[in-house]
Protein backbone atom coordinates (compact mmCIF):
# COMPACT_ATOMS: atom_id res chain seq x y z
CA UNK A 1 0.00 0.00 0.00
CA UNK A 2 1.53 3.30 -1.10
CA UNK A 3 1.67 5.93 1.59
CA UNK A 4 1.19 9.66 1.18
CA UNK A 5 -1.26 11.57 -0.97
CA UNK A 6 -1.31 10.78 -4.66
CA UNK A 7 -3.23 12.62 -7.39
CA UNK A 8 -3.21 10.92 -10.71
CA UNK A 9 -4.26 12.96 -13.79
CA UNK A 10 -7.05 14.61 -11.82
CA UNK A 11 -9.71 16.69 -13.56
CA UNK A 12 -12.61 18.35 -11.76
CA UNK A 13 -15.57 19.81 -13.59
CA UNK A 14 -18.13 21.76 -11.54
CA UNK A 15 -21.25 23.01 -13.30
CA UNK A 16 -19.92 24.02 -16.71
CA UNK A 17 -16.39 24.91 -15.54
CA UNK A 18 -13.18 22.93 -15.64
CA UNK A 19 -12.02 23.84 -12.18
CA UNK A 20 -8.94 21.59 -12.14
CA UNK A 21 -7.18 20.14 -15.17
CA UNK A 22 -4.66 17.34 -15.35
CA UNK A 23 -3.17 17.55 -11.87
CA UNK A 24 -0.50 14.94 -11.06
CA UNK A 25 0.95 15.05 -7.57
CA UNK A 26 2.63 12.94 -4.96
CA UNK A 27 2.63 14.68 -1.59
CA UNK A 28 5.00 13.17 0.94
CA UNK A 29 6.62 16.24 2.52
CA UNK A 30 5.72 17.20 6.06
CA UNK A 31 4.29 20.65 5.29
CA UNK A 32 2.88 21.62 1.91
CA UNK A 33 1.63 25.10 1.01
CA UNK A 34 -0.84 25.95 -1.74
CA UNK A 35 -1.21 29.46 -3.17
CA UNK A 36 -3.13 30.91 -6.10
CA UNK A 37 -5.60 33.62 -7.11
CA UNK A 38 -9.29 33.64 -6.14
CA UNK A 39 -11.06 31.02 -8.18
CA UNK A 40 -7.86 29.32 -9.33
CA UNK A 41 -8.91 26.01 -7.78
CA UNK A 42 -7.08 25.92 -4.44
CA UNK A 43 -10.12 25.00 -2.34
CA UNK A 44 -11.14 22.40 -4.86
CA UNK A 45 -7.67 20.88 -4.69
CA UNK A 46 -7.79 20.88 -0.88
CA UNK A 47 -11.27 19.34 -0.82
CA UNK A 48 -10.14 16.57 -3.15
CA UNK A 49 -7.77 15.37 -0.45
CA UNK A 50 -10.49 14.20 1.89
CA UNK A 51 -13.15 13.33 -0.64
CA UNK A 52 -15.35 16.39 -0.11
CA UNK A 53 -14.86 16.82 -3.85
CA UNK A 54 -14.37 13.82 -6.10
CA UNK A 55 -12.42 13.89 -9.34
CA UNK A 56 -14.46 13.88 -12.52
CA UNK A 57 -11.55 12.07 -14.12
CA UNK A 58 -8.43 10.55 -12.63
CA UNK A 59 -7.84 9.34 -9.11
CA UNK A 60 -6.97 10.69 -5.67
CA UNK A 61 -5.65 8.37 -3.00
CA UNK A 62 -4.49 8.80 0.58
CA UNK A 63 -2.20 6.07 1.89
CA UNK A 64 -3.49 3.88 -0.86
CA UNK A 65 -7.18 4.53 -0.14
CA UNK A 66 -9.16 5.87 -3.09
CA UNK A 67 -11.17 8.93 -1.95
CA UNK A 68 -14.02 8.00 -4.26
CA UNK A 69 -14.41 4.49 -2.92
CA UNK A 70 -13.31 4.80 0.69
CA UNK A 71 -14.69 8.23 1.62
CA UNK A 72 -15.29 7.56 5.33
CA UNK A 73 -11.91 5.87 5.81
CA UNK A 74 -10.16 8.72 4.03
CA UNK A 75 -11.94 11.31 6.16
CA UNK A 76 -10.87 9.53 9.35
CA UNK A 77 -7.31 9.89 8.13
CA UNK A 78 -7.55 13.45 6.80
CA UNK A 79 -8.80 16.23 9.07
CA UNK A 80 -10.09 19.41 7.43
CA UNK A 81 -9.97 22.97 8.80
CA UNK A 82 -12.20 25.44 6.96
CA UNK A 83 -11.71 29.18 6.56
CA UNK A 84 -14.72 30.21 8.61
CA UNK A 85 -14.66 28.60 12.05
CA UNK A 86 -18.33 29.46 12.52
CA UNK A 87 -19.12 27.17 9.64
CA UNK A 88 -17.43 24.19 11.19
CA UNK A 89 -18.29 24.61 14.85
CA UNK A 90 -21.45 22.56 14.84
CA UNK A 91 -22.35 22.09 18.49
CA UNK A 92 -23.58 24.72 20.95
CA UNK A 93 -20.75 24.56 23.48
CA UNK A 94 -16.98 24.22 23.22
CA UNK A 95 -16.72 20.80 24.85
CA UNK A 96 -19.71 19.39 22.97
CA UNK A 97 -18.16 20.43 19.68
CA UNK A 98 -14.89 18.64 20.36
CA UNK A 99 -16.74 15.59 21.65
CA UNK A 100 -18.85 15.46 18.51
CA UNK A 101 -15.73 14.51 16.55
CA UNK A 102 -15.21 11.36 18.60
CA UNK A 103 -16.90 8.09 17.67
CA UNK A 104 -20.02 7.32 19.69
CA UNK A 105 -18.59 3.87 20.28
CA UNK A 106 -15.97 5.20 22.72
CA UNK A 107 -17.07 5.00 26.35
CA UNK A 108 -18.46 8.26 27.66
CA UNK A 109 -15.70 8.71 30.24
CA UNK A 110 -13.00 8.12 27.67
CA UNK A 111 -14.57 10.72 25.40
CA UNK A 112 -14.72 13.25 28.24
CA UNK A 113 -11.08 12.56 29.06
CA UNK A 114 -9.92 13.09 25.50
CA UNK A 115 -11.98 16.26 25.13
CA UNK A 116 -10.54 17.71 28.34
CA UNK A 117 -7.02 16.80 27.28
CA UNK A 118 -7.42 18.33 23.82
CA UNK A 119 -8.88 21.56 25.23
CA UNK A 120 -6.11 21.84 27.79
CA UNK A 121 -3.45 21.48 25.10
CA UNK A 122 -4.74 24.51 23.20
CA UNK A 123 -5.56 26.51 26.32
CA UNK A 124 -9.33 26.42 25.94
CA UNK A 125 -10.02 24.28 29.00
CA UNK A 126 -11.55 27.10 31.02
CA UNK A 127 -14.01 27.74 28.18
CA UNK A 128 -15.18 24.12 27.95
CA UNK A 129 -18.75 24.82 29.00
CA UNK A 130 -19.06 28.15 27.19
CA UNK A 131 -21.32 28.63 24.18
CA UNK A 132 -19.11 28.70 21.10
CA UNK A 133 -20.42 32.05 19.93
CA UNK A 134 -18.85 33.81 22.91
CA UNK A 135 -15.34 32.92 21.75
CA UNK A 136 -13.22 35.42 19.84
CA UNK A 137 -12.37 34.78 16.19
CA UNK A 138 -8.96 33.40 17.07
CA UNK A 139 -10.38 31.16 19.81
CA UNK A 140 -13.02 29.86 17.41
CA UNK A 141 -10.39 28.86 14.89
CA UNK A 142 -8.44 27.21 17.72
CA UNK A 143 -11.58 25.27 18.66
CA UNK A 144 -12.14 24.22 15.05
CA UNK A 145 -8.57 22.98 14.93
CA UNK A 146 -9.01 21.13 18.22
CA UNK A 147 -12.13 19.39 16.97
CA UNK A 148 -10.05 18.14 14.07
CA UNK A 149 -6.97 17.14 16.07
CA UNK A 150 -8.90 15.21 18.72
CA UNK A 151 -9.55 12.46 16.20
CA UNK A 152 -5.78 12.14 15.64
CA UNK A 153 -5.83 12.32 11.85
CA UNK A 154 -2.68 11.46 9.94
CA UNK A 155 -3.00 14.51 7.68
CA UNK A 156 -4.44 17.97 8.38
CA UNK A 157 -5.71 20.00 5.44
CA UNK A 158 -6.44 23.65 6.18
CA UNK A 159 -8.14 25.95 3.66
CA UNK A 160 -7.15 29.54 4.48
CA UNK A 161 -7.47 29.03 8.22
CA UNK A 162 -6.09 32.50 9.08
CA UNK A 163 -7.91 34.61 6.51
CA UNK A 164 -10.46 35.90 9.02
CA UNK A 165 -7.91 36.60 11.78
CA UNK A 166 -5.72 39.53 12.68
CA UNK A 167 -1.93 39.52 12.77
CA UNK A 168 -1.57 38.17 16.29
CA UNK A 169 -4.11 35.37 15.86
CA UNK A 170 -2.78 34.57 12.39
CA UNK A 171 0.65 34.03 13.89
CA UNK A 172 -0.66 31.84 16.68
CA UNK A 173 -2.76 29.59 14.44
CA UNK A 174 -0.06 29.43 11.76
CA UNK A 175 2.59 28.53 14.32
CA UNK A 176 0.41 25.76 15.74
CA UNK A 177 -0.33 24.33 12.32
CA UNK A 178 3.29 24.42 11.20
CA UNK A 179 4.39 22.73 14.44
CA UNK A 180 1.98 19.81 14.08
CA UNK A 181 3.60 16.38 13.96
CA UNK A 182 1.06 15.48 11.27
CA UNK A 183 1.45 16.03 7.57
CA UNK A 184 -0.04 19.44 6.75
CA UNK A 185 -1.52 20.79 3.55
CA UNK A 186 -2.07 24.51 3.98
CA UNK A 187 -3.93 26.77 1.54
CA UNK A 188 -3.25 30.41 2.30
CA UNK A 189 -3.14 33.88 0.78
CA UNK A 190 -0.71 34.89 3.49
CA UNK A 191 2.71 34.44 1.95
CA UNK A 192 4.49 34.89 5.30
CA UNK A 193 2.61 31.84 6.57
CA UNK A 194 3.23 29.74 3.47
CA UNK A 195 6.94 30.60 3.63
CA UNK A 196 7.15 28.30 6.67
CA UNK A 197 6.23 25.16 4.70
CA UNK A 198 8.57 22.67 3.00
CA UNK A 199 7.07 22.70 -0.49
CA UNK A 200 4.74 25.13 -2.23
CA UNK A 201 2.28 24.49 -5.05
CA UNK A 202 1.09 27.42 -7.14
CA UNK A 203 -2.29 26.95 -8.81
CA UNK A 204 -3.57 29.10 -11.64
CA UNK A 205 -6.74 28.64 -13.64
CA UNK A 206 -7.06 25.02 -12.63
CA UNK A 207 -3.49 24.02 -13.40
CA UNK A 208 -0.39 23.52 -11.32
CA UNK A 209 1.97 26.23 -12.61
CA UNK A 210 4.76 25.88 -10.04
CA UNK A 211 5.86 23.27 -7.51
CA UNK A 212 9.02 24.11 -5.64
CA UNK A 213 10.61 25.16 -2.37
CA UNK A 214 8.85 28.17 -0.82
CA UNK A 215 11.41 30.74 -2.02
CA UNK A 216 11.22 30.19 -5.77
CA UNK A 217 7.55 29.14 -5.73
CA UNK A 218 6.43 32.31 -3.98
CA UNK A 219 8.52 34.43 -6.33
CA UNK A 220 6.69 32.76 -9.18
CA UNK A 221 3.34 33.53 -7.52
CA UNK A 222 4.26 37.17 -6.94
CA UNK A 223 5.17 37.57 -10.60
CA UNK A 224 1.89 35.90 -11.56
CA UNK A 225 -0.10 38.32 -9.41
CA UNK A 226 1.50 41.52 -10.64
Amino acid at each position, binding site marked *: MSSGIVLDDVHVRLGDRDVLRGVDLRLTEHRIGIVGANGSGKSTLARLLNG*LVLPTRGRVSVDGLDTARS*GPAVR*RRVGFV*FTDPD*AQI*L*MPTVAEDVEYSLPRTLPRAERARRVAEALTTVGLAEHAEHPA*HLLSGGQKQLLALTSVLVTEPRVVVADEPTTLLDLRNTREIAARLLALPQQLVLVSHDLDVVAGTDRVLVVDEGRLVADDEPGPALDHYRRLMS
Partner: protein
Amino acid sequence: MTRGPSALHRLPAGAKLAALAAGSLGLILVDSLPGVLAALGLVAAGYAAARISPRLAWEQVRPVALLVAILFGAQIWMIGLEPAAVVALRVVVLVALAGLVTLTTRAGDLLATIERAAHPLRGVGVDPARMALVLSLAIRGIPVLADVSRRVQDAQRARGRRDVRAYAVPVVVGALRRADAVSEALAARGRAD
Protein backbone atom coordinates in the same frame (compact mmCIF):
# COMPACT_ATOMS: atom_id res chain seq x y z
CA MET B 1 -31.14 32.93 37.40
CA THR B 2 -32.29 30.72 40.25
CA ARG B 3 -31.17 27.25 39.26
CA GLY B 4 -29.82 26.44 42.67
CA PRO B 5 -30.05 22.83 43.62
CA SER B 6 -33.24 21.76 45.40
CA ALA B 7 -35.07 18.47 45.52
CA LEU B 8 -37.19 19.74 42.63
CA HIS B 9 -34.12 20.62 40.60
CA ARG B 10 -32.68 17.18 41.13
CA LEU B 11 -35.85 15.33 40.11
CA PRO B 12 -35.39 13.64 36.72
CA ALA B 13 -36.57 15.81 33.84
CA GLY B 14 -38.77 13.01 32.54
CA ALA B 15 -40.61 12.75 35.84
CA LYS B 16 -41.27 16.48 35.88
CA LEU B 17 -42.52 16.48 32.29
CA ALA B 18 -44.83 13.58 33.09
CA ALA B 19 -46.08 15.37 36.21
CA LEU B 20 -46.73 18.49 34.17
CA ALA B 21 -48.73 16.55 31.62
CA ALA B 22 -50.72 14.75 34.30
CA GLY B 23 -51.25 17.98 36.23
CA SER B 24 -52.48 19.83 33.14
CA LEU B 25 -55.00 17.10 32.35
CA GLY B 26 -56.07 16.72 35.97
CA LEU B 27 -56.67 20.42 36.28
CA ILE B 28 -59.40 20.30 33.65
CA LEU B 29 -61.39 18.13 36.07
CA VAL B 30 -61.11 20.64 38.88
CA ASP B 31 -64.05 23.03 38.62
CA SER B 32 -64.61 24.40 42.08
CA LEU B 33 -63.01 27.49 43.54
CA PRO B 34 -61.56 25.67 46.56
CA GLY B 35 -60.16 23.10 44.13
CA VAL B 36 -58.23 25.57 41.96
CA LEU B 37 -57.14 27.52 45.02
CA ALA B 38 -55.71 24.31 46.45
CA ALA B 39 -53.93 23.66 43.14
CA LEU B 40 -52.57 27.19 43.19
CA GLY B 41 -51.34 26.67 46.74
CA LEU B 42 -49.63 23.46 45.71
CA VAL B 43 -47.81 25.15 42.85
CA ALA B 44 -46.82 28.06 45.10
CA ALA B 45 -45.41 25.54 47.57
CA GLY B 46 -43.42 24.08 44.69
CA TYR B 47 -41.92 27.50 43.90
CA ALA B 48 -41.05 27.93 47.57
CA ALA B 49 -39.48 24.48 47.78
CA ALA B 50 -37.37 25.26 44.69
CA ARG B 51 -36.38 28.56 46.35
CA ILE B 52 -37.49 30.62 43.36
CA SER B 53 -37.79 34.32 44.07
CA PRO B 54 -41.28 35.83 43.88
CA ARG B 55 -40.02 38.15 41.16
CA LEU B 56 -38.93 35.26 38.94
CA ALA B 57 -42.17 33.45 39.70
CA TRP B 58 -44.14 36.50 38.61
CA GLU B 59 -42.13 36.60 35.37
CA GLN B 60 -43.59 33.20 34.54
CA VAL B 61 -47.22 34.28 34.72
CA ARG B 62 -46.79 37.90 33.64
CA PRO B 63 -47.23 37.11 29.91
CA VAL B 64 -50.74 35.79 30.59
CA ALA B 65 -51.70 38.32 33.26
CA LEU B 66 -53.58 40.50 30.82
CA LEU B 67 -55.35 37.56 29.28
CA VAL B 68 -56.44 36.36 32.69
CA ALA B 69 -57.79 39.82 33.56
CA ILE B 70 -59.78 40.07 30.34
CA LEU B 71 -61.00 36.51 30.63
CA PHE B 72 -62.11 37.07 34.17
CA GLY B 73 -63.91 40.31 33.33
CA ALA B 74 -65.73 38.82 30.35
CA GLN B 75 -66.69 35.61 32.06
CA ILE B 76 -68.22 37.33 35.08
CA TRP B 77 -71.02 38.53 32.81
CA MET B 78 -71.54 35.21 31.15
CA ILE B 79 -71.16 32.62 33.87
CA GLY B 80 -70.96 34.50 37.12
CA LEU B 81 -68.23 35.48 39.55
CA GLU B 82 -67.17 32.18 41.00
CA PRO B 83 -67.01 30.09 37.79
CA ALA B 84 -65.19 33.01 36.11
CA ALA B 85 -62.60 32.96 38.87
CA VAL B 86 -62.17 29.22 38.39
CA VAL B 87 -61.55 29.56 34.63
CA ALA B 88 -59.09 32.42 35.11
CA LEU B 89 -57.19 30.79 37.97
CA ARG B 90 -56.89 27.56 36.04
CA VAL B 91 -54.87 29.37 33.37
CA VAL B 92 -52.65 30.89 36.07
CA VAL B 93 -52.03 27.50 37.67
CA LEU B 94 -51.24 25.85 34.34
CA VAL B 95 -48.78 28.49 33.26
CA ALA B 96 -47.17 28.65 36.70
CA LEU B 97 -46.77 24.88 36.80
CA ALA B 98 -45.17 24.82 33.36
CA GLY B 99 -42.89 27.66 34.43
CA LEU B 100 -41.88 25.74 37.54
CA VAL B 101 -40.76 22.78 35.45
CA THR B 102 -38.86 25.06 33.06
CA LEU B 103 -37.11 26.88 35.89
CA THR B 104 -36.02 23.77 37.73
CA THR B 105 -34.77 21.77 34.76
CA ARG B 106 -31.71 22.39 32.62
CA ALA B 107 -32.40 22.76 28.91
CA GLY B 108 -29.87 20.04 28.17
CA ASP B 109 -31.65 17.58 30.46
CA LEU B 110 -34.98 18.35 28.86
CA LEU B 111 -33.44 17.84 25.42
CA ALA B 112 -32.01 14.51 26.53
CA THR B 113 -35.45 13.51 27.83
CA ILE B 114 -37.07 14.44 24.55
CA GLU B 115 -34.51 12.29 22.77
CA ARG B 116 -35.15 9.36 25.05
CA ALA B 117 -38.89 9.80 24.64
CA ALA B 118 -38.34 9.62 20.90
CA HIS B 119 -36.72 6.19 21.07
CA PRO B 120 -40.01 4.27 20.85
CA LEU B 121 -40.79 6.29 17.71
CA ARG B 122 -37.93 4.63 15.84
CA GLY B 123 -40.48 2.27 14.36
CA VAL B 124 -42.15 5.13 12.51
CA GLY B 125 -38.92 6.49 11.10
CA VAL B 126 -37.80 8.86 13.85
CA ASP B 127 -34.07 8.64 14.47
CA PRO B 128 -33.30 9.96 17.98
CA ALA B 129 -29.61 10.55 17.21
CA ARG B 130 -30.51 12.58 14.16
CA MET B 131 -33.11 14.47 16.17
CA ALA B 132 -30.46 15.34 18.74
CA LEU B 133 -28.19 16.53 15.94
CA VAL B 134 -30.90 18.75 14.44
CA LEU B 135 -31.64 20.31 17.83
CA SER B 136 -27.94 21.02 18.44
CA LEU B 137 -27.47 22.46 14.96
CA ALA B 138 -30.46 24.71 15.56
CA ILE B 139 -29.12 26.00 18.89
CA ARG B 140 -25.70 26.60 17.37
CA GLY B 141 -27.31 28.24 14.33
CA ILE B 142 -29.15 30.92 16.29
CA PRO B 143 -26.17 33.15 17.19
CA VAL B 144 -24.67 32.64 13.74
CA LEU B 145 -27.83 33.70 11.93
CA ALA B 146 -28.45 36.47 14.45
CA ASP B 147 -25.08 37.79 13.35
CA VAL B 148 -26.09 37.59 9.69
CA SER B 149 -29.33 39.36 10.56
CA ARG B 150 -27.47 42.14 12.35
CA ARG B 151 -25.08 42.63 9.45
CA VAL B 152 -27.92 42.82 6.96
CA GLN B 153 -29.72 45.36 9.12
CA ASP B 154 -26.54 47.44 9.33
CA ALA B 155 -26.15 47.32 5.55
CA GLN B 156 -29.75 48.46 5.14
CA ARG B 157 -29.29 51.33 7.53
CA ALA B 158 -26.05 52.35 5.84
CA ARG B 159 -27.94 52.55 2.56
CA GLY B 160 -30.74 54.52 4.14
CA ARG B 161 -33.44 51.99 3.39
CA ARG B 162 -35.47 49.61 5.49
CA ASP B 163 -37.96 47.14 4.16
CA VAL B 164 -38.82 43.60 5.01
CA ARG B 165 -38.06 42.11 1.62
CA ALA B 166 -34.53 43.53 1.45
CA TYR B 167 -34.04 42.15 4.97
CA ALA B 168 -35.53 38.73 4.45
CA VAL B 169 -33.96 37.85 1.10
CA PRO B 170 -30.31 38.20 2.20
CA VAL B 171 -30.95 36.64 5.61
CA VAL B 172 -32.67 33.61 4.07
CA VAL B 173 -29.89 33.29 1.49
CA GLY B 174 -27.49 33.45 4.43
CA ALA B 175 -29.41 30.61 6.08
CA LEU B 176 -29.26 28.47 2.93
CA ARG B 177 -25.54 29.08 2.62
CA ARG B 178 -25.06 28.14 6.25
CA ALA B 179 -27.03 24.95 5.70
CA ASP B 180 -24.65 24.10 2.85
CA ALA B 181 -21.59 24.89 4.95
CA VAL B 182 -22.88 22.82 7.87
CA SER B 183 -23.65 19.94 5.60
CA GLU B 184 -20.11 20.05 4.24
CA ALA B 185 -18.62 20.36 7.72
CA LEU B 186 -20.63 17.32 8.80
CA ALA B 187 -19.20 15.41 5.87
CA ALA B 188 -15.67 16.51 6.75
CA ARG B 189 -16.19 15.16 10.27
CA GLY B 190 -17.27 11.84 8.87
CA ARG B 191 -21.00 12.39 9.38
CA ALA B 192 -22.14 12.50 5.79
CA ASP B 193 -24.49 9.54 6.03
